[in-house]
């Protein structure tokens, strides 16, 4: 990116496109060039641990999956070689390509530059760069990976042997104020380390793994049980200690680590490998990027976002998502990505759809009365298939198969001209079904289905025979067998193809309105974003007033005024002409499916039936009412939220306390609620700082288990510590105790806790005790889950479709999730997710129709015995009973069905069938797998008619 000019709504961006030296539209990613390239150089994707070629594909999942030429190329350096040019059969290599300047006009900009891993080599931390067997966590990540430098084997650089005894050192580059390090917490390292330990144990069950750590910050959803799972593995030690790598043993290249523990003093231990859990730095070019776009960075070098809305930069029209906001895990990155997308959408809504053109396909030919006429196209994939498999003989063979009326070979079936050739041949030879024998359907099936549509044939009349991944690639040394196998695969594909049925995808109209359940900060933010993009929103709230839990929060850790923000948000909601607010609302019934829901509610407006296309669940969470530590018995014991309220109301009793004790982890991180409430550590620090501001002489103790002020919140933890707030750690088996006693004639709350550093019991006489009461799942979650056919997780919070990849949607389509109903989170995180949910809802609502796959299940009612096995098997709630004269019969809602076919496998009578993967279609493939002549004669004769 060279330049950005203009302003919100009309930016002119100048990009310098570096030459790839490969013509993108010609390269098919076949890999022949890579094979012949003579240059080996350290592979950047694999952390330079292994070698790669000068021409290569960056990594196996790269998009587009085509190669590029690196500056290590002999031609680029010395004008020699040009082998790749000679071997490329598609003439895709262009060594004369020049950098290209591209100007683009855009209305909004979304910055997602990610982060830069902390580099311990700069200061030589822990001997990294000096000792061969000290690696970073990212190096180790590649070692673990099947596509990594040693194909998934963990090997030491010094001797290529498997390490058996490994150490991880946490917080490398993070949580330190020394120059060159970062003062913040990198937020992801505790859990990624646990993942690496689990994977290491998968590789080598006897591996001994030691993790040297500070606080364990398992604050994310499902993280606490994950931590326990790691800690419970045999041969795992979690040691809370600072460490140094003191030396390398010259003979073995093993490493000696020195560490200190509270009970055993300074110790040394020898390891085969040391992994440094490095943190997250701002992106390397953050400053230049900020300067070009004219946005501000914060003191750490991350993007300075709006404190409530971290996706908004200091410049209108420029948004930010992902770790450029600050260190964050994948789900948060995904929320913010969807959310920033929604904000771009909001910003540019007036132009939505102006540049789209509709694709028009020729009318589909009705071939139902015709005999199958199959065309088979066998792809050489350059040399990928053709060099191993004898392609011409497979073409010849294909012509002998039943229903095959045409067969040919193609150099690259996926090339544009080849697809055109298929379309032409379908017309010329009057084909009604097509088999392409090439690669995995995963990449190219959509392309070939499209090719069929272009030829006026139903797209489900297509079958792919994978003779590359399943054949030529794995049998490179056995060309004859590979050819035979290719014929088998083609025969099976042809057999199935002859039975395929034309299927229609279902187009459903989309109701353009949304229902948002819950009007806290999450629900309101989401509702506003949807409404601002021109959609009607029905916002239902069970309370009389809007605002939810935020009504009890006065400031954020960063010092923002929550009440003022909330007041403004409520005003915007009420003023918005497209938002209909229902308070005192109860949902009575919810039916329907994606694009077409009907929800009946009673509210202050009486009874209402709401029709909507999308649903957002934002019902928040509740505060745990403690039963421990004298809560409810002694009015001097309160929760952090109550304390916050009393500070805001300037309660003298609180403000004039001489001593205040906070106890963390009350009601969670225990057997009943095995999760961390995520926000309480920051909440404690926030209240402590506020109290210290008002009354610097107050003694404040925070009794904690792990301080989880993750990310940039770490600075406030440090500030509190510097302001003499005392942090004392306790172990779950030795909880703090509390008693109301009289000391020197004054009633006090006597708190006793074991100080792990001093190793002795500490007695604190407090005037006020504040408890970090857990955030617990909302009371109505079960009902809401049932109404909208969504599920709850083991912790009873709502369960998203995928914890990392789809964190704002449910597996039930058209239903989205945000805020603390998903899991406890901070206000800025809720806002990220609320915009995220709006963004996902908008991708649905902005369409006129939603298309459901044709490959779904259907029931032959006559065969259905009403046993309900299919209903039990379906995890999507797509099957229901309906009463008929002949009893209960299962009926599939094709819109909800995902086509997994579990029901088909469970149905005793064969009444339910998964279209496109029917029993007949699969069985015929199984039958075709065996060649007639291969079946022993006696076997064939055995059963006459079967």
């Amino acid at each position: 990116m060279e330049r950005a000019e203009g302003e919100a709504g009309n930016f002119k961006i100048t990009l310098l496109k570096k030459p790839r030296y490969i013509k993108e539209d010609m390269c098919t990613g076949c890999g022949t060039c890579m094979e012949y390239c003579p240059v080996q150089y350290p592979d950047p994707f694999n952390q330079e641990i292994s070698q790669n070629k000068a021409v290569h594909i960056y990594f196996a999942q790269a998009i587009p999956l085509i190669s590029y030429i690196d500056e290590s190329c002999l031609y680029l350096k010395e004008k020699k070689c040009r082998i790749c040019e000679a071997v490329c059969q598609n003439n895709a290599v262009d060594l004369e390509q020049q950098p290209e300047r591209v100007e683009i006009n855009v209305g909004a900009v979304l910055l997602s530059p990610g982060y830069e891993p902390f580099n311990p080599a700069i200061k030589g931390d822990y001997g990294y760069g000096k000792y061969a067997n000290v690696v970073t966590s990212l190096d180790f990540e590649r070692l673990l990976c099947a596509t990594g430098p040693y194909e998934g084997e963990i090997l030491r650089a010094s001797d290529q042997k498997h390490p058996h005894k490994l150490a991880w050192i946490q917080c490398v580059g993070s949580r330190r104020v020394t120059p060159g390090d970062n003062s913040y917490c990198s937020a992801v390292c505790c859990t990624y380390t646990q993942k690496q330990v689990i994977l290491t144990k998968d590789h080598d069950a006897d591996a001994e793994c030691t993790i040297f750590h500070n606080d364990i910050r398992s604050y994310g959803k499902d993280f606490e049980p994950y931590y326990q799972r790691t800690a419970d593995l045999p041969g795992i030690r979690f040691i809370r200690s600072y460490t140094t790598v003191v030396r390398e043993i010259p003979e073995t290249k093993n490493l000696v680590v020195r560490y200190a523990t509270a009970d055993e003093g300074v110790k040394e231990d020898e390891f085969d490998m040391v992994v440094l859990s490095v943190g997250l730095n701002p992106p390397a070019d953050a400053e230049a990027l900020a300067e070009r776009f004219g946005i501000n960075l914060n003191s750490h070098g991350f993007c300075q976002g709006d404190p409530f809305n971290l996706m908004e930069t200091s410049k209108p029209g420029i948004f930010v998502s992902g770790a450029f906001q600050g260190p964050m895990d994948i789900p948060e990155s995904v929320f913010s990505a969807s959310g920033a997308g929604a904000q771009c959408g909001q910003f540019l809504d007036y132009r939505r759809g102006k540049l789209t053109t509709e694709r028009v396909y020729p009318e589909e030919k009705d071939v139902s009365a015709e005999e199958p006429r199959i065309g088979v196209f066998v792809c050489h994939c350059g040399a990928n298939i053709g060099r191993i498999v004898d392609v011409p003989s497979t073409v010849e063979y294909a012509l002998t198969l039943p229903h095959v009326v045409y067969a040919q070979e193609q150099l690259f079936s996926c090339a544009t001209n080849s697809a055109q050739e298929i379309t032409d041949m379908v017309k010329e030879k009057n084909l009604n079904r097509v088999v392409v024998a090439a690669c995995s359907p995963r990449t190219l099936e959509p392309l070939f289905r499209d090719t069929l549509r272009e030829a006026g044939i139903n797209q489900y009349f297509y079958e792919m025979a994978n003779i590359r991944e399943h054949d030529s690639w794995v049998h490179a040394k056995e060309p004859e067998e590979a050819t035979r196998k290719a014929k088998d695969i083609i025969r099976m594909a042809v057999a199935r193809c002859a039975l395929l049925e034309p299927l229609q995808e279902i187009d459903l109209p989309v109701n353009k309105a949304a229902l948002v359940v819950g009007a806290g900060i999450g629900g309101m933010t989401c509702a506003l974003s949807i409404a601002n993009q021109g959609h009607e929103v029905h916002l239902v709230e069970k309370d009389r007033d809007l605002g939810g839990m935020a009504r009890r929060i006065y400031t954020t850790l960063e010092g923002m005024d929550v009440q003022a923000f909330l007041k403004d948000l409520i005003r915007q909601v009420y003023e918005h002409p497209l938002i209909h607010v229902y308070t005192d609302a109860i949902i009575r019934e919810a039916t329907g499916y994606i694009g077409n829901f009907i929800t009946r509610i009673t509210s202050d407006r009486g009874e209402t039936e709401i029709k909507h296309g999308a649903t957002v669940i934002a019902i928040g969470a509740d505060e745990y009412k403690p039963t421990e530590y004298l809560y409810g018995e002694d009015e001097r014991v309160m929760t952090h939220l109550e304390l916050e309220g009393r500070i805001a109301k300037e309660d003298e009793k609180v403000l004039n306390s001489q001593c205040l004790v906070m106890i963390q982890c009350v009601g969670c991180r225990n057997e009943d609620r095995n999760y961390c409430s995520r926000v309480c550590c920051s909440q404690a620090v926030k209240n402590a700082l506020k109290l210290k501001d008002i009354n610097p002489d107050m003694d404040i103790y925070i009794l904690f288990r792990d301080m989880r002020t993750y990310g940039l919140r770490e600075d406030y933890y440090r500030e509190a510590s510097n302001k003499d707030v005392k942090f004392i750690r306790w172990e779950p088996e030795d909880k703090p105790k509390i008693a109301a006693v009289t000391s020197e004639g004054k009633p006090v709350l006597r708190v006793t806790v074991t100080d792990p550093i001093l190793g002795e019991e500490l007695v604190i006489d407090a005037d006020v005790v504040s408890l970090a009461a857990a955030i617990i799942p909302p009371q109505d979650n079960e009902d809401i889950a049932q109404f909208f056919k969504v599920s709850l997780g083991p912790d009873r919070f709502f369960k998203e479709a995928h914890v990392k990849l789809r964190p704002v949607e449910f597996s039930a389509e058209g239903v989205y999730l945000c805020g603390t109903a998903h899991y406890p989170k901070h206000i800025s995180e809720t806002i990220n997710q609320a915009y995220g949910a709006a963004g996902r809802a908008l991708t649905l609502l902005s369409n006129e129709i939603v298309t459901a796959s044709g490959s779904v299940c259907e029931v032959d009612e006559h065969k259905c015995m009403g046993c309900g096995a299919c209903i039990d098997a379906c995890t999507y709630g797509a099957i229901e009973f309906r009463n008929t004269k002949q009893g209960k019969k299962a009926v599939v809602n094709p819109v909800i069905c995902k086509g997994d076919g579990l029901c088909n496998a469970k149905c005793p009578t064969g009444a339910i069938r998964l279209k496109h993967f029917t029993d007949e279609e699969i069985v015929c493939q199984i039958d075709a797998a065996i060649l007639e002549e291969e079946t022993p004669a006696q076997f064939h004769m055995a059963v006459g008619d079967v």
Partner: protein
Amino acid sequence: MCSGRIDLEFILRAFFNGQDGVFIVGCRLNECNYVTHGNYHALNVALLGKRILEYIGLNPERLNIQFMSAGDGILFAEHMNAFDSKVKELGPLGLGEGIDREELKYKIKDIERLIPYIKIAKREKLGGRLTKNEDYEGLFTKDEVEELFRDVPSYYIDPEKCQACMMCFRRCPAGAIVGGKNRIHVIDQDKCIKCGTCLEVCPPRFSAVTKLAGEPVPPPIPEEKRVIARKGKKE
């Protein structure tokens, strides 16, 4: 389509066709990208399949199930190679076990006919989710499968009681009931899938259908005796 789509029929069909081994691969357990977790269903089917092979007299190791991701190429090759050597060691289907091939085919076909019955009888276990590797072997036991096939029920319509009301005739999901208006219904035992629908729907005032276990089904009454003469309608 998910690996949970794998039907017992597919496995038996392959062995019926004379394949020496069947290898099933599903996604890694607990890593479902949806909410389906159908690979557990595939596991259950495979575990049942192994016991059935044993019942037939085939080596259960001819059926193998593994779980891996698309990135686990090396693991896949390892498992495939190991399975390949295993199958080679076991020898051609039937020959290795000393079963006559003709007999084997009949045996498999017999079991194939019972798939509906098996699915009904083992419905719960087939849809369950095993969490521990140690539980795999115990999900279906040898005794259990033997019992399953020993206790195969048959349904029989007592011609004395049948009033040709057409209830079972209409409701039979397999179309196994022969009969019509005023014609005593008879179950075609070859078509019957043992689902018990006829027993369930036969009006209690007739109670013409009985479930037989372990005893032979009486022969069907001759065609000519099937007409019911209604009162007042005598010819």
